[in-house]
């Protein structure tokens, strides 16, 4: 409750400021609608918004699940196998240097306007931060623990699961935080490049039709979803931070 109160106050302040700007400048509502108008658009189009958000959220979830699962598996594999490190690490560095968002048109060209292109974009964008953060955590075992596992003649897989992995959970948490921030971008960009459904698609068409209030309503919904996703990732990451 004590944490919620300042947030609500900040929100009220922002809404007041927004309304004040609209009143004082007299800007037309198709350029900048006031918060009341956007609130009305949110309520009047609730069914449409929920339907579109469902599509976006489903793709976001599936893409995140795929990206995170593959990222964790890759990091574990890289940590276990020196051969994999030699082969794949330069590729990883190269892949990180490529702006993944720029791949959206190609991914859409290959996979079409439906859900698969969105899922793949989200997976691509989340895969790299998760892999690289988790892999770094796995490899950065403190020397004292490294000495200990050596002294105990640990089997490599046991060492990985019993010592390296628990030690790397906070690093994985940082990767998940990054992934949670990037994933909504990825799904929206994929929808902008080509889609027939989703919040990003709705924003494009309402913009085209001059329904700026609906566009803002979609934007607010999207921002809320992104925020909740980040808070969930952050909560998990904090839980892991406390354990180590």
């Amino acid at each position, binding site marked *: 409750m004590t944490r919620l109160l300042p947030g609500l106050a900040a929100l009220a302040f922002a809404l007041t400021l927004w309304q004040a700007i609209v009143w004082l400048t007299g800007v037309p509502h198709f350029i900048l609608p006031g918060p009341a108008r956007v609130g009305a658009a949110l309520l009047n189009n609730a069914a449409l918004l929920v339907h579109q958000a469902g599509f976006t959220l489903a793709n976001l979830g599936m893409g995140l699940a795929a990206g995170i699962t593959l990222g964790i598996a890759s990091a574990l594999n890289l940590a276990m196998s020196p051969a994999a490190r030699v082969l794949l690490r330069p590729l990883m560095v190269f892949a990180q240097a490529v702006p993944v968002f720029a791949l959206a048109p190609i991914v859409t060209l290959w996979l079409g306007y439906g859900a698969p292109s969105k899922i793949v974009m989200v997976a691509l964008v989340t895969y790299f931060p998760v892999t690289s953060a988790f892999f770094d955590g796995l490899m950065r075992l403190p020397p*004292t*623990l490294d*000495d*200990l*596992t*050596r*002294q*105990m*003649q*640990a*089997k490599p897989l*046991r*060492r990985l699961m*019993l*010592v390296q992995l*628990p*030690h790397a959970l906070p690093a994985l948490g940082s990767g998940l935080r990054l992934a949670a921030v990037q994933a909504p971008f990825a799904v929206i960009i994929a929808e902008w490049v080509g889609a027939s459904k989703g919040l990003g698609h709705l924003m494009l068409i309402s913009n085209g039709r001059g329904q700026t209030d609906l566009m803002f309503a979609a934007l607010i919904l999207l921002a809320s979803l992104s925020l909740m996703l980040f808070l969930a990732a952050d909560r998990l990451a904090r839980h892991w931070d406390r*354990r*180590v």
Partner: protein
Amino acid sequence: MTAPALQIAGDLRLGGQTLCPALNLTCPAAQWTVLLGPSGVGKSTLARMIADVPCPAHLTGGITASDGKPLDGRVILMAQTDQLLPWASVLDNVTLGARLRGQNPDRARALDLLNRVGLDGYATRRPATLSGGQRQRVALARTLMEDRPIVVMDEPFSALDAATRATMQDATATLLRGRTVILITHDPLEAARLAHHAHLMRTDGLHPLPLPATAPPRALSDPATLSAQADLYVRLMQVPA
């Protein structure tokens, strides 16, 4: 388990520099050999070499056991830091070795060892809830759990307060009986209490140190212990010629 004696010979070198020349050290079987000396002379380095933990230095001679068998897997190092896994319970920390080797951990023995180091009822606690002395006791139980004939201790009690340190010294002397122990320390009192044999390690080599004739662990209140401590202090402060 019969503990062998250890023979350590050669120059301890780091890069092109000699840390300690002409080591010729015998650590008798089932006794405590204490190496006392100033910082930077290579005491910890030597401890790591005996325990076969990677370190940048090397020994021109070698380290051999009196029974002629390789040392591999017969030495355990107890370090200055307790090296406890913060996410694992006390019991899981004590049984870590077996779990890392894929063996079935002997929980009954682990609980018995925890009991013997004075941590009865602490098995499910997390290391973060323990004091420094308790944590070092867990590390001692973990070391004993490995059941190796040769134990190398690198200033294991240096971070503890005086009273806790004295208690730990007594407990360790009792629990490690029958093993060949090499203790690295810069505390003259620790050497005077625990050593069967003590050596001063300096940049000009190893020097044997005099000790009371009584068997360790020597009582803190024994005047002979305290006079040995004073004598070791004086020798520790002498600068090599």
